């Protein structure tokens, strides 16, 4: 097909520029590590990896919501929903305070989409808009979301939000619009760019506060920091009884 060869030739032209830029990026040496780890932009994600996070609630402090604000800034939710009521505004991530009624023991932790291996939201979605990527990240394909909200009924973590009003000037990394459902993407745009070295916005903001409660990484790679920490100290799944095998693990609860 001539049509195809046209595409290929122009693609090559385009890639020339990119490759030279990549070459330049390799040059300073500092970047080499990143290039070696990250997935190339033109390759699909695979099930060789499963992304997850470990959250050490012992390092999480009560009243601190840096992770929530970090997520808001990165993905642009919450601020521009001016017409929505308090429980209508998006909540990709929230801080939850716990108190054991029998002992008085308290805890504070961030809660977001748990990126289940067997996500109920994916099972119930009639169109397949709610889906799990090969690398374990659970997303909503808003192009085919019809806004039925069954996934929100099915999610055990109340991790999903429905957009209740028209939006403008959404951030390119997180397109979002009226009448569709959304949730934490595990900062998938950063993961696609930086792979193992990615730091989701919540974790980045937590680090900036000096708490360092989050560890992001590949649960399938036994040498990743997250796998090693889990092997050493273990981690709890919220509502492990449901057998969803979540990607977000907690320590200290």
């Amino acid at each position, binding site marked *: 097909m001539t049509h195809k060869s046209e595409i290929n030739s122009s693609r090559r032209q385009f890639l020339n520029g990119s490759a030279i830029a990549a070459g330049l990026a390799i040059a300073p040496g500092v970047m080499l590590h990143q290039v070696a780890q990250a997935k190339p932009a033109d390759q699909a994600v695979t099930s060789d990896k499963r992304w997850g996070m470990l959250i050490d609630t012992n390092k999480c402090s009560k009243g601190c919501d840096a992770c929530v604000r970090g997520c808001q800034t990165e993905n642009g939710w919450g601020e521009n929903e001016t017409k*929505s009521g308090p*429980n209508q505004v998006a909540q990709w991530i929230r801080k939850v305070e716990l108190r054991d009624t029998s002992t008085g023991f308290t805890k504070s932790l961030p*809660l977001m989409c748990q990126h289940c291996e067997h996500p109920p939201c994916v099972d119930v979605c009639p169109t*397949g808009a709610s889906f799990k990527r090969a690398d374990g990240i659970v997303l909503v394909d808003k192009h*085919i979301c019809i806004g039925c909200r*069954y996934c929100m009924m099915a999610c*055990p973590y109340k991790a999903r939000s429905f957009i*209740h009003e028209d939006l403008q000037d959404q951030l390119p990394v997180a397109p979002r619009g009226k*009448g569709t459902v959304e949730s934490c993407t595990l900062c998938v745009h950063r993961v696609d760019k930086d792979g193992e070295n990615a730091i989701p916005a919540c974790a980045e903001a937590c680090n900036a506060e000096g708490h360092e409660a989050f560890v992001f990484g590949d649960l399938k790679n036994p040498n990743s920091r997250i796998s090693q920490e889990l092997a050493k100290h273990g981690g709890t799944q919220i509502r492990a009884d449901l057998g969803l095998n979540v990607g977000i693990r907690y320590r200290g609860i």
Partner: protein
Amino acid sequence: MKANVHFREVLNNGTGYYGLLALLGAIVLIGLGAAYFMEHNGHFVTGMNNEIVWGMPHVFAVFLIVAASGALNVASIGSVFGKSQYKPLAPLSGLLAIALLAGGLAVLVLDLGHPDRLIVAMTYYNFKSIFAWNVMLYTGFMAVVVVYLWMMMERKMNKYTKPAGFFAFIWRLALTTGTGSIFGFIVAREAYDAAIMAPMFVIMSFSFGLAAYILVLMASFKWTERELGDKILYRLKNLLGIFVGAVLYFVLAYHLTNLYAAEHHSVERFILLDGGIYTKLFWIGQILIGGLIPLAMLYHPTLGKSRAVIGWACALVILGGMAQMYVIIIGGQAFPLVLFPGMEVSSSFADGIVASYTPKLPEYLLGIGGVAIALLLVTIAVKVLRFLPESLADAIVDPHTASDAKGTAKKAA
């Protein structure tokens, strides 16, 4: 010898018929306007939020869909279970089933975040989703009942009525099982995640559907001045009583099972004792108004023979059914998710507290619009096609017990 039952389209041309048509049409238009208002602005204009994601429109929609499958029962009793007295009632039964389903689906679709993407819902399927199965069950139900009606109403096809009726009966059981499973399959929420949801919805459909059927039957016969004999009406109202009792039994079984398990104590306490509006709706709406009072009315030795009382009993069953839907759908969402058993939780997103929900006007209007769509369809259909028997006088319905009246019956026919 069997008396012939004649069917005749509605011949009324007076202000009564067109007035009814105009009234229903106006309500439908208001409902569509409400839907447009919600879709244009976004759902912030409704009381629904990220905690109560399904609201008043879904109460109406699920009620109508459940009642739709139940409305077909009258026809099934005739052709599947061979009760010949029910056969003259069958065409209206099929018609009402289609109309109620259309009304319910309209509400469901118009409440979507993206009703404009209906074509996506029909071209992208996730076969693991009970919702996707339901899309097929609902559209299939319409087609199956249309074929069933055709077999019934076209003389040449009459011989296929029984298999078509049997197929429609199986399909309607599947449909209500599917609707109940929308809730039964939700593992996350305390009030759902129970296998009994599916059979309970089937029984609810028997009850709500029959109540709607009796009301439509009585109204259409009265307004078109046709004779509705006591025999058939008492038969129907006694059957309704059995269904109302069966619903109460299923509700009892559901709550007893939950009360036995300590993990469900808090949700039971919420619905049965201190859930505010949900507790009131449960005891006063669902149990008293929708169950015990109509039961007493229907089985009362003297009152139970009054048409007004029968009519009111049907209305109460419908009201109670709406209350039951509200308790199931809204109450089930309002009860907080238990993420950390044994812990007290609080957050910026109402964790650990009962979600609040105040339905807004457009939600009511959309729901009522759905009811009006169903009734409008029936009103138009009985005028253009022969759904209604000319008479359901005792002698025609049951000629064996009224053999001495055979002569008069023939004259009447």
